[in-house]
């Protein structure tokens, strides 16, 4: 919520008004604007969303949705149930493994969803040299970690159990092969 508030304060209001002028009230987990709009932050938690039921809104933004449980999402969705076409749900996340409800939703061919994929390479705030060094640090540009964290790819949950370097080292020219 602190990030949201900071971002809001950085906005410039129209007609000479500052964003600050439109800020009616502010707390740790919400801000209320002069026009009656509210932005609230709800913790996901591990209780399946039991503590956040009951709210109503027109826009839900779920951060890191891939890591949210299906139970939590089941509790969140009804918040826009009465808003008809004005009710919107925005899901943001670093991809994880190609499994679970989040991956299935992203892969589903459903025109009611608009899907966007933005990689670290497209982010002007990330230095390319830093990204190249980071790739080396976490196993190369083909590694599961790099593809997930920076290339926005859902990755196969399976990992080879036998590394190439170890296998290469196992080759020997001194073994007497049994021919049969």
């Amino acid at each position, binding site marked *: 919520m602190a990030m949201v508030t900071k971002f809001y304060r950085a906005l410039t209001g129209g007609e000479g008004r500052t964003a600050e002028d439109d800020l009616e009230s502010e707390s740790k987990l919400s801000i209320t604007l002069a026009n009656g709009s509210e932005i609230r932050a709800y913790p996901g938690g591990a209780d399946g969303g039991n503590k956040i039921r009951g709210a109503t809104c027109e826009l839900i933004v779920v951060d890191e949705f891939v890591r949210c449980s299906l139970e939590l999402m089941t509790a969140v969705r009804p918040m826009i149930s009465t808003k008809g076409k004005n009710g919107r749900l925005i899901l943001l996340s670093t991809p994880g493994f190609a*499994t*679970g409800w989040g991956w299935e939703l992203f892969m589903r061919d459903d025109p009611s969803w608009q899907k966007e994929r933005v990689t670290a390479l497209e982010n002007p705030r990330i230095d390319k040299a830093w990204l190249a060094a980071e790739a080396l640090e976490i196993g190369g540009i083909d590694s599961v970690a790099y593809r997930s964290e920076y290339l926005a790819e859902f990755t*196969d*949950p*399976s*990992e*080879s*159990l*036998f590394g*190439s370097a*170890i*296998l290469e*080292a*196992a*080759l*020997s*020219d*001194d*073994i*007497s*092969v*049994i*021919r*049969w």
Partner: protein
Amino acid sequence: MENPADYGIPSQEWGPCAITASGYVAAVERRQLACGLDPANLVDFCGVAIVESIESPEVDAQGQPVLDINQRQKLLPARYEVRSLRRLPRGVGYLAIVAEVGRLIAHPEMRGAVLCVDAGGLGGVVVDLIQAAGIAPNLIAVTTTGSVTGKETRSPDGTGLCVGKQQLVANLQTLLQTGRLLIPRDLPESKTFLEELKSYSLTLSASGHPSYGASTGHDDLVSAASLAVFALYPKKMGAWTTESLEL
């Protein structure tokens, strides 16, 4: 090893050692061969792997090891060599598999070798045929399970062992990661074996259940090699023998 004393082994328990440029080594090598067989019929290949363990125990004047197996493993862990790899073609019948196994076991170099067969699924038929033919006196029938305890149990019918797939894979991993499993470079099937190993993976289901196997292609040679290694790998309770298994 530079000096047994560095490992906390009392000098009176060293047994006779030969001193070489690399330090103390045991006087006698102990070798044991095992053949792993992963039977298949129509869809997969039938994998065959021959692995040899080469153990260099400290020995007394009678050639008997003077250290218990745990100490010996710490002192001079055995190395393992893949002596042969082979895929029998798809569609080969049970009798043809048994005939090939019989030919292999009769090979002069295979005297005293253990035959470890995957008895799961159609493998049970192959085990029955091998037993009926009486071609493999040292036969271990292994049914792989999802167990993660690392303990083998006797199969319900008492004729073989139930072993977690994880245990079979962990043995291979341990040997490869410690540089103790060697693979012949010039064997054509070694390339296939390496490809199988590279694509061999662990997959967790949504409920967290682990399953092992090739993410792409086949894993018959990996299965066969893991069975051979299992037959040779030291067990906490001592090495498997046909007597201890009562087979």
